[in-house]
């Protein structure tokens, strides 16, 4: 079966994010950009399904600026077969990305789409769920384990109370949680091979998708600086402070 794996270009997780002086967003100029870590987990899971002989082809897709090709190349070096770049400069909200992905799904006909549960830049945690709704497909979100089972998929989900196991009939949507796997780093021969794998570029308009933003950002500001903690000498003092100063018990 064919797999689709969306990958997003985000500020690298090691970068200390700075808010732009005008408060319209975060600084991305001259900042190291990488693939969203949850998407790396998605690519890894797809590659493992291919290595097990369950998947036959993996298509990596990214919606974003021309430079998002780099993240597609990373996915290709990890083991994806080909890439699609939906090129768009400017803001892409989850609903717009979900519509783009729906159009790609209709064109490519994958049996399974594996997405990161959220991107580490805006932490929306929405695209996978929206895509499932638009397609009318079953979804297994926050997956920590994915097992194929007779034309279906058994997905273990990390929910508040513990673990929940669901069975999805295919085609389906899976979004990855942190503990699903540990992504591989690309080997040198695979980095070299990735250079020769094809990346197709399309525009949202080619897919008939209107990506005009529906939300407007009013203000972006840094979280307040954390105050230094206090040391207490005894449990009694701690309880006293929690009760009378912090007023939490």
């Amino acid at each position, binding site marked *: 079966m064919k797999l689709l794996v969306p990958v997003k270009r985000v500020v690298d997780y090691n970068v200390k994010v700075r808010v732009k002086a005008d408060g319209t967003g975060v600084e991305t100029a001259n900042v190291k950009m990488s693939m969203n870590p949850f998407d790396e987990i998605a690519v890894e899971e797809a590659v493992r399904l291919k290595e097990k002989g369950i998947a036959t082809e993996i298509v990596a897709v990214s919606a974003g600026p021309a430079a998002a*090709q*780099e993240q597609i*190349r*990373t996915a290709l*070096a990890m083991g994806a077969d080909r890439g699609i770049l939906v090129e768009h400069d400017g803001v892409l909200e989850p609903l717009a990305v979900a519509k783009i992905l729906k159009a790609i799904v209709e064109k490519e006909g994958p049996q399974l789409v594996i997405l990161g549960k959220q991107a580490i830049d805006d932490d929306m945690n929405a695209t996978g769920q929206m895509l499932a709704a638009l397609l009318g497909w079953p979804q297994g979100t926050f997956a920590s384990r994915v097992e194929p089972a007779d034309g279906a998929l058994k997905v273990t989900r990390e929910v508040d109370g513990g673990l929940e196991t669901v069975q999805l009939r295919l085609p389906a949507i899976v979004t990855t949680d942190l503990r699903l796997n540990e992504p591989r*780093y*690309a*080997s*040198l*021969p*695979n*980095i*070299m091979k*990735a*250079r020769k794998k094809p990346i197709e570029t399309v525009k949202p308009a080619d897919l008939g998708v209107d990506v005009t933003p529906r939300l407007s950002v009013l203000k972006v500001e840094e979280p307040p600086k954390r105050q230094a903690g206090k040391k207490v000498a005894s449990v009694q003092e701690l309880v006293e402070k929690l009760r009378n100063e912090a007023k939490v018990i």
Partner: protein
Amino acid sequence: MDFALTPEQEAIREGVAALCARFDDAYWLAKDREGGFPHEFHRAVAEAGYLGICIPEEYGGSGLGITEAALMMEAIAASGAGMSGATAVHLNIFGLHPVVVHGTPEQKRRMLPPIARGEVKACFGVTEPTTGLDTTRLKTRAERRGDRYVVNGQKVWISTAQVADNILLLARTTPVEQCRNPADGISLFYTRLDRARASVREIEKMGRKAVDSNEIFFEDMEVPEEDRIGEEGKGFRYILHGLNPERVLIAAEAVGIGRAALRRAADYARERVVFGRPIGQNQAVQHPLAQDWMALEAAWLMCLQAAWRYDQGLDCGAQANAAKYLAAEAGLKACQNAIMTHGGFGYAREYHVERFLREAMIPWIAPVSPNLICCYIAERVLGLPKSY
């Protein structure tokens, strides 16, 4: 002029850094204390396909240039693996280049893929106790007897000979008196290091305990003719070709170790509070670190320029030598300043920077002394009379 790395080069640097991140400070600290070849690290680099970075694709490598190899070696050293990590794989990267250039198709098929896969470890046998940099005076003899050669003599400062399966060996096949030019009559072999006929003795040394340095004594070690690389008597010229790339890689490693030290120094200066402020707020602490950054960046640019010239097929002797000089100096200085930034703790092993300082002496001394680099630049670039 374009100073940007290509996306593939970025991917290589990131790939190597990700791989090295699995071998943390504790790993290298333990290796430095207890010794023992970092086999796990060597295997990981091999499995990720990086050992064959410069070996042609048809022989199991990736066929990339010295630029990519320099990026790789810098990333290894900068990860905190230092010269222990770099030297563990250094020879696989470019050591067998004479085989790539001068080997027969049969030799390339036989010799290159196992090195690219990391199944075979090799050492590089050139330096001798009495010849040093005056390589054409080397005394190890390889006498021809029928279809084989018999090797007698002594080599010194042979890295990894404790674990090496094979040796790239330079030995005299025609006595120097019978040669018109002392550079003639020396041949190059790539052959099994026959421990029954070669005794290997480890040298106790200042740093890089994990990767051994040795004396080797050859006593009638037989080398089959099919292990001779290229023509008999031309070995020295073959080796010369590989010296500039070696300098570039050593320079890259020196920049890497300097960056590893500088990063720790800056982190410490930011966090360590004395007299109610971080010590890094004091100019006497921050200026040396700023100077280290500038020196390391400048050396790195020279390193990349030399690598680029080599990969373009241009003469790179001056640049490769200058890169090795500048990088070794900048790397060493950065390690010294990192210790001073840490104060007393810089002298403690658990802060790692003293280990870097001991290792940073290696690229300062080897493979050619800073003095001889100055002689080279004076003579070849500035046209001054030869001084030695």
